């Protein structure tokens, strides 16, 4: 054991770090609706994200119906199809995944896991949610606006995004989309400041950075990245809004549309792509890093083993975060660039595989000879590892310029990114909900519904996306409403598409079982107690479950160890909570 001597700060001893002044709500409205409690805000964020995610799920059904059975459904016009794919992508990436991981899990877990009473700026935190809700409402409004929502593809590439040929391009669709994104970014920045500063300043005594659970590390790093990356999307949105509304030509070159010369001239569409992907690539890791962190904690807890290579895991998270800012142009290989740039971006892209592979090895090594409990959260965590490796490997293909050029804009790319940043993070979200639901509600989610949900989702997701790789390899392009007859596309592709559609419908219905479980268990679930998984991290050690406003009762916990003391030889139990001074006794006044 190393004696880490306590360090005293100039003038102020650690015990005298001032307590946060909590806002005490007076009525029902300020307790449950306009709440400044991070836990309530977390549930609001998660509820809103799941509600809008459900819309995106239905949109994916509709688009699959068109692809699987083209021509059968009259109401799916080409315009409607483009609107479905656009809104599905945008909602899933931004309004569901980003909001749920950072706004949902970030708000709930950061204060509890670092031993804080709340976020450091609770009022700003509350505003963050309400602006997010406004962004969602503006987004939903575009479905009801004249012309419908935008159908520009989730990347919103100009010039087509604001031309009359694209659904919503000359109507309200694109305007509401851009306005909604701008609002989302403003709201997120408010929340993000909270998450970062709470990790920096809100940690309780003894909770050094290197004793934080990896969940907090993942969310913390992702938030820092998001704070730096979202401004790129902000700039792109503002400039495109100017182009659309005020007639500027930031992104719009001189164009002839329907034989008519438009008033635009001199803009650069490539500039938009740079700005978009400068946000877009870090966004992949903004979604992935919290998933990495959460899955590390799930695996360690449910395999009753300390996480293998904790330090390496932390460094890998930070290094992935930093590297993700210099790979953005690998999304633009086919947009035309100097070959040396392609070489540079292919190299940086492949380098990211190193820290990522370290993480995968460490998860596997954590499982190695662990006391694996195949609980629902563990099943989801294992499914994540497999899925992430799958999606990651095709990423190595696509990172190479020569392989990417023929595969670009095919269904192969669609299969790749759905595996790596669609299915994989969603599996973690499910695992995390099954894991923390007992803390949030005091009751366990139903086991049998959980088993059903897991197996249908896991097997079903593979039934959807494995064949899609093949469909892409034979050359089926993405974003085509109908393939028609092509010499190079065999008829078997149509059969596969029908199969994928059926699988997608089934997987979608399995999510309804999950949603039902969430409500059913609230009332009828088994009583969970304070620490049903016998976990070490602080959120499981709260005096009451679910934790009340302020979390910790009279005194905040004192942390004596890292978050992964499972199966320590000689310890009375197979886990030692972070606030347990074992083998010493707690000294009066500190515990």
């Amino acid at each position: 054991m190393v004696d880490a001597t306590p360090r005293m700060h100039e003038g102020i001893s650690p015990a005298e770090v001032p307590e946060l002044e909590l806002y005490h709500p007076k009525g029902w409205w300020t307790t449950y609706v306009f709440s400044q409690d991070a836990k309530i805000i977390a549930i609001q964020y998660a509820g809103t994200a799941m509600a809008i995610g459900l819309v995106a799920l239905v949109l994916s059904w509709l688009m699959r119906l068109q692809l699987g059975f083209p021509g059968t459904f009259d109401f799916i016009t080409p315009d409607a199809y483009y609107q479905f794919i656009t809104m599905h992508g945008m909602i899933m990436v931004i309004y569901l995944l980003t909001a749920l991981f950072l706004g949902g899990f970030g708000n709930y877990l950061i204060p509890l896991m670092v031993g804080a009473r709340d976020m450091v700026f609770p009022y700003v935190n509350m505003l963050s949610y309400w602006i997010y809700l406004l962004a969602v409402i503006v987004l939903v409004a575009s479905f009801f606006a004249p012309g419908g929502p935008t159908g520009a593809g989730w990347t919103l590439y100009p010039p087509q995004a604001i031309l009359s040929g694209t659904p919503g391009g000359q109507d309200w669709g694109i305007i509401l989309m851009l306005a909604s994104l701008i609002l989302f970014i403003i709201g997120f920045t408010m929340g993000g400041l909270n998450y970062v500063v709470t990790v920096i300043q809100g940690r309780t005594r003894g909770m050094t950075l290197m004793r934080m659970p990896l969940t907090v590390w993942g969310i913390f790093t992702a938030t820092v990245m998001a704070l730096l990356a979202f401004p790129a999307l902000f700039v792109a949105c503002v400039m495109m809004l100017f182009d659309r509304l005020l007639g500027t030509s930031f992104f719009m070159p001189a164009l002839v549309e329907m034989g008519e010369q438009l008033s635009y001239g001199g803009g650069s569409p490539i500039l938009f792509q740079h700005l978009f992907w400068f946000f877009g690539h870090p966004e992949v890791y903004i979604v992935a890093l919290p998933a990495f962190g959460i899955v590390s904690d799930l695996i360690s807890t449910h395999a009753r083993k300390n996480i293998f290579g904790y330090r390496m895991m932390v460094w890998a998270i930070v290094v992935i975060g930093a590297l993700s800012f210099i790979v953005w142009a690998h999304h633009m290989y086919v947009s035309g660039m100097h070959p040396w740039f392609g070489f540079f971006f292919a190299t940086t892209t492949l380098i990211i595989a190193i820290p990522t592979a370290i993480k995968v090895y460490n998860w596997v090594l954590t499982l190695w000879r662990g006391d694996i409990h195949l609980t629902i959260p563990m099943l989801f965590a294992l499914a994540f590892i497999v899925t992430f490796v799958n999606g990651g490997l095709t990423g190595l293909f696509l990172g190479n310029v020569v392989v990417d050029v023929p595969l670009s804009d095919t269904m192969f790319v669609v299969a790749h990114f759905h595996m790596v940043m669609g299915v994989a993070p969603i599996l973690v979200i499910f695992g995390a909900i099954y894991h923390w639901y007992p803390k949030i509600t005091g009751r366990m989610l139903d086991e049998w519904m959980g088993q059903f949900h897991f197996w249908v989702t896991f097997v079903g997701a593979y039934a959807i996306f494995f064949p899609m790789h093949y469909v892409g390899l034979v050359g089926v392009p993405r974003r085509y409403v109908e393939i028609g007859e092509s010499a190079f596309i065999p008829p078997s592709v149509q059969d596969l598409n029908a199969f994928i559609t059926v699988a997608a419908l089934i997987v979608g219905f399995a999510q309804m079982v999950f949603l039902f479980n969430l409500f059913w268990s609230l009332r009828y679930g088994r009583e969970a107690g304070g620490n049903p998984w016998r976990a070490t991290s602080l959120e499981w050690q709260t005096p009451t479950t679910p934790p009340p406003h302020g979390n910790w009762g009279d005194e905040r916990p004192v942390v004596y160890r890292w978050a992964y003391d499972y199966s320590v030889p000689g310890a009375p139990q197979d886990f030692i909570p972070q606030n347990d001074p074992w083998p010493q006794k707690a000294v009066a006044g500190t515990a």
Partner: protein
Amino acid sequence: MSVILVFILVVAGFSFWWLLQHRVLSKPWLEHGVHAALPETDISNMPTAKIGLGIFLAVIGALFALFASAYFMRMEYSDWQAPPLPRILWINTGVLILASIALHCAVRAVRERRMGMTRLALVTGGFATLVFLTGQLTAWRDLSAGGHFLDSNPANGFFYLITGAHGLHILGGLVALGRTTAKTWDETLPTERLRLSVELCAAYWHFLLLIWLGLFVLLAGWAGDLVALCRQLLT
């Protein structure tokens, strides 16, 4: 995209330095129990609001670095025609520097608990900032009077967009400054709270002045010369 990359590099460098300060090289699995009596903490005793503002300024910095990046990328095209620099921008720059100096004086005064002086300095700073904003609007009017409209070419668009974004940030700061100034009349407020507010305002003003100086160099077209000079020095 070079401007934003340099900015990210600076932020990353600072972050890595901060992480090293917080012992990311330590081995947490080996340390437990021993220092149970007084577990250490590595929380900084700097006020939380200041750290929050610091991170917010980093976000604003990223925003303007991205505007500058976009400006540079577009500038490389052969048809780039920057509008003439309105003369009044020189005066505006001077006025904004004056506002920053005034707020600096306010910080010194509030530290010495001289309330009258603090109030005067805050009001002067706010007034100078209003003059700056009026000056920026005049610059817009001069440009459009000379036929350089927002939509006549991308260079003009960038001019209005970037100065507008900066102006909006200043406007937001003015709200905070107004509230801080109002606080100086509140006798019951502890001086520490007021001091913190004044210091936060001053930091925001200094940062936005710095950004403005960068934007001024950019819009005046000297940035291109500067880059060319750097390239020559490097090669």
